[in-house]
């Protein structure tokens, strides 16, 4: 996220509304700093000036005009903050009519995007610069939250409901997406990237991404999928147990299942585990893996199996 154009306090302003949010921030910031310095300076000065033993008499015990003054001035300031905040919020919440819709499904622990043309992506989203998009979001399990710091926008993603998040990116490049509603062990790894392209680059990307990959050797294809489909969130390649069993040394292993039976990890078992993940759950793990039925081609499944075989 840190790029040449970010400030000390904020990531870059990469959306149409980011500058307004930051301007409101700095307004409140300087009002706050002013009052804080005023109060602290007064405290320090009074403590020093009126230390015990001074001979300067006694101050007033109250003063209605003074107390009204320091009630009314802050009142005016906070009403200004409220109005500006509300105006900015309406901009953040209301997508322009011409925004292109992308559907988003959140689940433990990945972001799944589906374009109007049926193209699907996991944990990465490719869009055009200076074009409005509207994400229509829902969750398959618990509440998640879609947050893009460099856009200054955020919206919860709730099971059984749809919420929306719109943006128009003003800077090409990669923008970080975080999940900001606590959702369990993989919460802090539930990340995605928004790739903002120029219209030409976007068209190029679209063309390339829609051609099924038939040339990459299977193990290499599997390695790519391991990253792009975020298998790493739950399955390590170094032998450490995360949410699911590690892929290292997995192939050919005898696994004890939750129901007490054992199974040998072969091609058939791995395929079943991707398509019906809760059919045979290894002992000590929760049945939380979502199905990849219809989301992986046969060649991609073979690729993942061949990739797992290489991790001995």
């Amino acid at each position, binding site marked *: 996220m840190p790029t040449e154009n970010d400030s000390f306090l*904020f990531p870059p302003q990469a959306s149409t509304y980011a500058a307004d949010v930051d301007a409101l921030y700095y307004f409140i910031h300087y009002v706050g700093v002013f009052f804080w310095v005023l109060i602290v300076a007064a405290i320090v000065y009074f403590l020093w000036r009126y230390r015990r033993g001074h001979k300067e008499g006694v*101050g007033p015990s*109250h003063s209605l005009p003074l107390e009204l003054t320091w009630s009314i001035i802050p009142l005016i300031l906070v009403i200004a903050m409220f109005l500006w905040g*509300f105006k900015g919020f309406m901009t953040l919440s209301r997508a322009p009519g011409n925004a292109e819709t992308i559907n988003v499904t959140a689940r433990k622990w990945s972001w799944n995007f589906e374009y109007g043309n049926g193209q699907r992506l996991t944990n990465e989203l490719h869009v055009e610069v200076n074009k409005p998009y509207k994400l229509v979001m829902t969750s398959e399990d618990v509440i998640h939250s879609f947050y893009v710091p460099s856009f200054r926008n955020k*919206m919860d993603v709730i099971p059984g409901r749809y919420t929306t998040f719109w943006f128009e990116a003003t800077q090409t490049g990669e923008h*970080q997406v975080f999940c900001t509603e606590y959702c369990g062990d993989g919460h802090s790894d539930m990340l995605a990237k928004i790739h903002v392209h120029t219209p030409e680059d976007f068209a190029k990307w679209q063309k390339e991404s829609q051609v099924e990959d038939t040339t990459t050797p299977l193990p290499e294809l599997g390695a790519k999928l391991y990253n792009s489909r975020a298998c790493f969130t739950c399955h390590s390649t170094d032998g450490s147990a995360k949410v699911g069993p590690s892929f290292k040394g997995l192939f050919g292993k005898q696994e004890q299942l939750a129901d007490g039976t054992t199974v040998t990890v072969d091609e058939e078992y791995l395929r079943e585990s991707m398509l019906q993940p809760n059919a045979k759950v290894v002992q000590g793990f929760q049945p939380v893996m979502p199905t990849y039925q219809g989301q992986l081609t046969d060649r991609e499944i073979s690729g993942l199996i061949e990739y797992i075989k290489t991790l001995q």
Partner: protein
Amino acid sequence: MSTTTATPVPAADMDAWPKTHYWNATRGLKSWLFTVDHKRIGMMYLISILTAFLLGGVFAILVRLELLTPGATIVGAKTYNQLFTLHGAVMVFLFLVPSIPAAIGNFVLPIQLGAKDVAFPKLNLLSLWVYWLGALFSIYSLFAGAIDTGWTFYTPYSLQTDTAVTSMVLAAFILGFSSILTGLNFIVSIHKLRAPGMTWFRMPLLLWALYATSVIQLLATPVLAITLLLIAAERLLGVGIFDPALGGDPVLYQHFFWFYSHPAVYIMVVPAFGVISEIVATFTRRPIFGYRFVAFSSLAIAFVGFFVWGHHMFVAGQSEFAGMVFSFLSFFIAIPTAVKIFNWTATLYKGSTRLDSPMLYAIVFLIQFTIGGLTGLFLGALATDVHFHDTYFVVAHFHYVMMGGTVFAFLGGLHYWWPKMTGRMYNEKLAKIAVAILFVGFNVTFFTQFILGTRGMPRRYYNYLPEYQGLHGMSSVGSWILAVGFIIVACYLVASLRSGKIAGANPWGASTLEWKTASPPPTENFAETPHIHTGPYVYADEGIEGSRRAA
């Protein structure tokens, strides 16, 4: 008040150690466990909440240690999630909510009223027992799989996790009753037990603050109880209130939860305002500037605090209209809070100020709590809250209010009333050093988190991007400085019990009633009922003018 002769100690013996007092009036463990003396109950609460604070503090240190580096540092993701949940749950339910009211309030409130005890002494003891029962449930949950939901127990995650959510929400449910009983007792005591001549406007400001707090405890806590019971029912019986899989609504839970938990923030912080008023008055030897504004601002905060819960849910899918209303109302909390800060500052004007350790805590409170309050403005404003919600900015804001505010006020109160509670003085030099260390430690730990937040670092993250490591590292170092400060405080306070100088009845030259009886006070507080003729803050050396101003 200056005319009272309300002490069993003759005036000449004001600096002496009383022969019988509430510690030695009766002996044996049973005499403590079954006592109805508000002072003993207060002391047992004090020991209990300090134990909880130690436990919550250990969890906090472990959380910060884990965050020293991205990825695994000392524990796995699941353990980390349990640690931050337990830190929050223990600190909120076992420490912050009962801290000032149940420990300091129980001890001080009846004496400040000029009463022998609270209105319902047996109910008071019951409240302590209920607290202990809730604490036992919490400890049981710790060993029965802990809990990994965050202290907010958000659904549907809390309905699905396999950790000990049911027993932990039952613990919070039980603790709520302890809180309700204390609140009820205080309200009735303040209405019925004020000494003859003590009108409402002659009450010390701590009592106004405790009154406002008690009203919130009484009205808001039952809603939390119902909500937590629904979670338990949903987990045990599968009724579909909150789980969308059963036709429930997970956001409804957030409404219920924050309907209690936002006012609960004021349960935690309004008593701190009361403590600060007492300390500032005593160490400047001046009545609090604008007594009535300060008294009514506590009530105003308590009242408005009930109508702002939706500001926790600006990005939770509630309507823009609801967001607008809650944002607007939230800003109204800023006004009575600002009034208090300005009035305390104005009290220092032409005061006669001494910087003993309780006063140092009060000053640090003013500096830090003002930051906590002002950073709340970013979170009340809709557009900026969208960026900051659920980032470290909120964590920092919350800790500036709860720790920089309430905990420092609690420590100030503890140092202020310590000589009254124990009859002995602590090592003042060490106390001053400890304030400085805690001040530095606190700000190193939490100021960095504001910047983490503006830069977009989400909260409750076990793992984080490498660019955040510098600030996370600094924050962790700050937590070690804080730990050193707390260890020093614990050492000299414990040492004072054995070797501290005899405090005498009124070591600070304070004017409220608790300083007109012996230290430690006798079981019945006063030999004869005090009669009140003036306001609470009248100091001898001000002569006639002082009493006229304060009356």
